[in-house]
């Protein structure tokens, strides 16, 4: 019953391996371009990936129960466009109200997705594919067929993205708050653990009195909430609302989670993993132009690197499994 040594716990944990990969990436990139590892550059890294990072938390919840959500960026566009248009035509102003509206729209969108998945048993990929089309179309429709809300139309709303609080950009604070909250939520609350339970063994969860359907509904609503938040962030950070914002961005969020060790079949994944996964992805994307890879080749490298990271992870896992077996006494 002796406790594992600290060293063994670190090498045995997936998160530690990911952190190692991230540190390696940092060192390599800094070697190419020393301006990468400066506080302002790192802040910018988080700020420019805040949307993906925040939404990776929702995707974590969704993937924990074995689901997937590819409608998120449409929800983001719908909620972002909605507040953009409301601000543009002066129905609302300020910072807080648009955030609340965007989040509310996100919650409603996510709730609908959750209803269809939990109550009508539609496989998540199909349901969210449908909603991907639906919400994106609604985003277009509310934009009056293609109006944009630009920086000047947004008024003071986007100021939060340039304001600093205690030396850190407010956007980064939002990301930090989200991660701290979810770390607490997933680890320390009953509801958080219920999400893990449902993902780990839905039948068992049902038998032990957990309402599996409601948990599923909940995770998709959380995902919607974060998509709404993402919409407000997107509009704020880039001071611009367009109906085709972040088209295709859902795949980045999914990739971030998978890199972070979140299992697509459910049950496995941590908030730290989601954080490291999205940071690794963000670093890859940011680093490619910095290390001198030509514009045209960047996408290829991004794809190859994602593949390499997940494959290396698998290989490391295999090696550590094999070592664990070898250590077994015969």
């Amino acid at each position, binding site marked *: 019953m002796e406790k594992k040594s600290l060293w063994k716990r670190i090498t045995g944990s997936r998160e530690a391996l990911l952190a190692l990969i991230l540190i390696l990436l940092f060192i390599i990139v800094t070697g190419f371009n020393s301006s990468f590892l400066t506080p302002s550059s790192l802040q910018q890294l988080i700020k420019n990936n805040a949307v993906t990072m925040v939404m990776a938390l929702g995707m974590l919840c969704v993937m924990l129960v074995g689901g997937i959500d590819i409608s998120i960026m449409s929800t983001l566009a719908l909620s972002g466009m909605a507040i953009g248009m409301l601000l543009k035509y002066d129905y609302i102003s300020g910072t807080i109200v648009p955030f609340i509206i965007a989040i509310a729209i996100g919650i409603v969108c996510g709730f609908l997705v959750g209803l269809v998945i939990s109550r009508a048993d539609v496989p998540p990929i199909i349901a969210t594919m449908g909603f991907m089309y639906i919400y994106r179309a609604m985003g277009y429709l509310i934009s009056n067929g293609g109006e944009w809300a630009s920086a*000047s139309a947004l008024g003071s709303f986007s100021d939060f993205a340039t304001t600093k609080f205690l030396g850190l950009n407010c956007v980064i604070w939002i990301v930090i708050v989200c991660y701290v909250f979810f770390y607490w939520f997933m680890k320390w609350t009953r509801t958080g653990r219920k999400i893990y339970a449902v993902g780990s063994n839905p039948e068992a969860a049902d038998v032990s009195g957990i309402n599996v359907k409601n948990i599923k509904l909940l995770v998709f609503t959380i995902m919607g909430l974060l998509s709404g938040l993402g919409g407000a962030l997107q509009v704020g950070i880039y001071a611009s609302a367009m109906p*085709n914002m972040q088209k295709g961005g859902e795949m980045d969020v999914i990739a971030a989670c998978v890199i972070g060790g979140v299992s697509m079949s459910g049950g496995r994944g941590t908030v730290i993993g989601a954080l490291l996964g999205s940071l690794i992805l963000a670093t890859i994307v940011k680093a490619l132009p910095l290390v001198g890879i030509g514009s045209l080749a960047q996408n290829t490298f991004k794809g190859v690197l994602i593949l390499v990271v997940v494959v290396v992870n698998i290989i490391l896992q295999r090696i550590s499994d094999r070592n664990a077996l070898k250590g077994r006494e015969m």
Partner: protein
Amino acid sequence: MKRKVISALLCVAMATTLLAGCGSSSSTSTSTEAEETEETEEAEEAEETEEAEETEATGSYAGQKIALVGKSAGNAFFEIAAATFVSTVEAEGGTVDLAYPEEATADAQIKVIDNLISQDYDAICLSANDTNALQAKLEEAMDAGIAVSSFDSAPNAESRQVFVNQAGTTAVAQALVDAVYDITDGAGQWAILSATSQASNQNAWIEAMEEIIANDDTYADLELVEIAYGDDEAQKSTDQTEALLQNYPDLEVICAPTTVGIAAAAKYLQDNGSSCKLTGLGLPSEMEAYTGDGDDYSCPYFYLWDMEGLGSLSAYATMALVNGEITGALGETFTAGDLGEFTITEADDGGTEIVLGLPLEFTPENVSEYAELY
């Protein structure tokens, strides 16, 4: 088995709701309800064009049915020109239907053109997603007697009758190079932040800019360090802008000839108080917050063209094509309402074009005025 029957019923119910749903959504299209069979349609179409040629002298554009095809839905830039296009045609008594592809791809645009050929349009005016990809379909349209014009972004010479160029490619390139020259005080590093690698307008301008710099010693001290692509996404454009600054600390100007790219770059530069300045092509409404003199603003001035004029001129050119006033041949002239008289000139790609005029410069003084418009 009962379940199956019920789901069959549901399908029917769904079909009916579809009917209702589509009925309401189609209210934007304003086609005339003519119940004719296909063959007579085609015959009449041919007749119509003949008729149009006969009535050439009267100069009436009434009754024309024109389709306007965008690059994709949700593009504010296009919407502005489209709005004037529609109002111009309608003022002349014609009708315009807007059609958008599902995606900003040539494949999707082909499907739209296919749809339009099936209907009895007199003309198609489009902004092309790809230079060459639409040739087959547009030739088919022209064979079917439909006039094909384009504006903003041209399909190749074989697949159009005339292209309405917002501002001559060289003129735009010249203006941008001059702006870079002016902002850098004649010497220094600069970079281009473009849309996607296959955006035909951007590619043409960049090519022209490179040519101008290569051929004129005035610009010998300007060093174009990199062409980056932001894919018209705010996030990627921001990343690329930042990478440019980190890779080239001495970078003095970024030239972004794309609306999304310029806004994202402007935002980044301004927020970070960078000494690097920005110019390019952008929408005044998007750029208003970033345009100004001094270090607080990232963009001293930028360019675009007369978007309303573009829509209006394209409308007149298209109507003139339908009427037979012009055929798209080199040297023809026609009158575009209040805009005055225009001559068809040779385009760089070997086809013909009508040039609207010089690019408009937006300075801190006039940007807010234009921001009201577009």
